[in-house]
């Protein structure tokens, strides 16, 4: 049962991922990404990571895709929906293969520990996030803050010139 579900979800994830790069329409690409991300949430569910699955739906399925669509609609692409720029595909290929190599290597090196089919209590998750993993957590939020300030600065300089 769980293997059937896993294979089904994996296929949906891959189809969504291929859809993102194969379609010529930017909005369709965003929607394929949504399908792929929601299928990943399903994979989290069968791995008993309910919290992670809901975070995936909230952050990626909801907020990030909406902001993506917002940005696409603001760039007036609804008037030219079929334009897409594929000149950067070699760089994209290198990045994708590199990421795959890093992930595969980390999977080989790390000991695969069996956690057991049990969803961790929310309190334990919060404790480890704010004690043991506090520094990576704060660094991640710092990265987001830097991105936010950078976006404001870019927008502001454009305003001054225009």
């Amino acid at each position, binding site marked *: 049962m769980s293997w059937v579900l896993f294979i089904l979800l994996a296929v949906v994830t891959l189809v969504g991922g291929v859809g993102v790069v194969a379609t010529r329409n930017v909005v369709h690409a965003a929607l394929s990404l949504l399908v792929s991300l929601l299928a990943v949430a399903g994979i989290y569910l069968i*791995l008993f990571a309910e919290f992670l699955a809901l975070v995936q739906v909230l952050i990626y399925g*909801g907020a990030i*895709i*909406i902001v993506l669509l917002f940005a696409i*609609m603001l760039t007036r692409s609804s008037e030219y929906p079929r334009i897409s720029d594929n000149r950067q595909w070699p760089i994209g290929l290198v990045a994708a293969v590199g990421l795959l190599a890093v992930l595969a290597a980390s999977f080989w090196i790390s000991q695969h520990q069996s956690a057991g089919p049990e969803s961790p209590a929310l309190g334990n998750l919060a404790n480890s996030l704010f004690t043991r993993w506090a520094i990576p957590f704060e660094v991640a939020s710092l990265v987001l803050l830097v991105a936010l300030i950078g976006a404001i600065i870019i927008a502001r300089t454009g305003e001054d010139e225009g």
Partner: protein
Amino acid sequence: MNFQPDLAPPQLLAISALDFVWIVVGLLVMFTFLSVMVLVQVWLERKVLGRLQRRLGPTRTGPMGLMQPVADAVKLILKEDIIPAESEKAIFWIAPVIVVVSAFMIWVTIPGSPDAVIQNLESLGLFYIIAFAVVGILGLVLAGWGSANKYGTLGGLRAAAQLISYEIPVIMVVIAVAMLAQSMNMKEIVAQQSPYPYVLLQPLGLVVFFIAGLAEVGRTPFDIYLAESEIVGGPFVEYSGAHWSVFFLAEYLNTFAIAALTVLLFFGGWSGPFLSGNWDIIWFFAKVYAVILVIFWIRGTFPRLRIDQLMAFAWKVMVPLSFYTIVITGIYMFYNWPPWTLTLMSVAGLVVVAYIIYRRLTGPANRVAEIRARQEEQRTARQRGREAVAP
């Protein structure tokens, strides 16, 4: 090296045929019940708005116009379903489905009484509701884009900006409530409110949650993305007939959900005197409809905001207030202070913000009076000068 991921063992995923039948029956009952509730709400809204505007509201169809929503529904379903030629057909079709499915999915875990719930999610009920509420926004954005209409696209953009902004205070206040209850289980949150409902501990939280919740479902003071007088209905401009009624259904379901969440999180849910056991559900609906009446009252009273006012209000008032709510809840929990201290801190925040808003509202009028006074002064001074030169 073990390459097999730890998938859920089969015995946990396998549900028996009987369970499956029960879930399907439960979902059907929920669907029917919520649809009837929407009809009641439509009738109530037309009647209450009518009274607020010194009209009678519907009177002709059935006693007191009770059959009016049924007649409306029949009319909407029979109307021709027009699909614009330039639209993206698939997106145009899927957008209302996304909106209404997420509106129904929220209700799976909202309890009306300890037993009146399809599936109470033990550890994550509240978080599930928040997560699926966000997905509905996507449908509005897609509806705006898919209908190939400039007003639709504008409405979609407005919906994305407004709903994402107001999602933040809603989530933050919900976090404060989860901190107080030490749980995200809806039943547990209601059980924790047995001596004092959280409205007494966190009045600021209630105000922020209710206002941001109204903005979340796009009720009238906040219906910027529909704004008939500006962008003729926003994302819904090209929709007609059954498709449009699906959006309508979702909007009423979401209003009902916000009222139910307000009751569950701040007014002690189904707990009340005189009734016990599953009769508690009567208290739940009494409270929910009281909140819904307040929502109609607000709709009948306030004019629509401007988009810049709306966004400024979200980021400059609601978001800081929601963070303040979390901070005072944390202080209260950490130092184990008596409950009234939290009430005091919460009310203090409310008063400070009310004063600032009062100053901002009366500010322009005061400035006009100031300028008038100065002009008057200058005029009298000039006059006096002329009189001094004249002789």
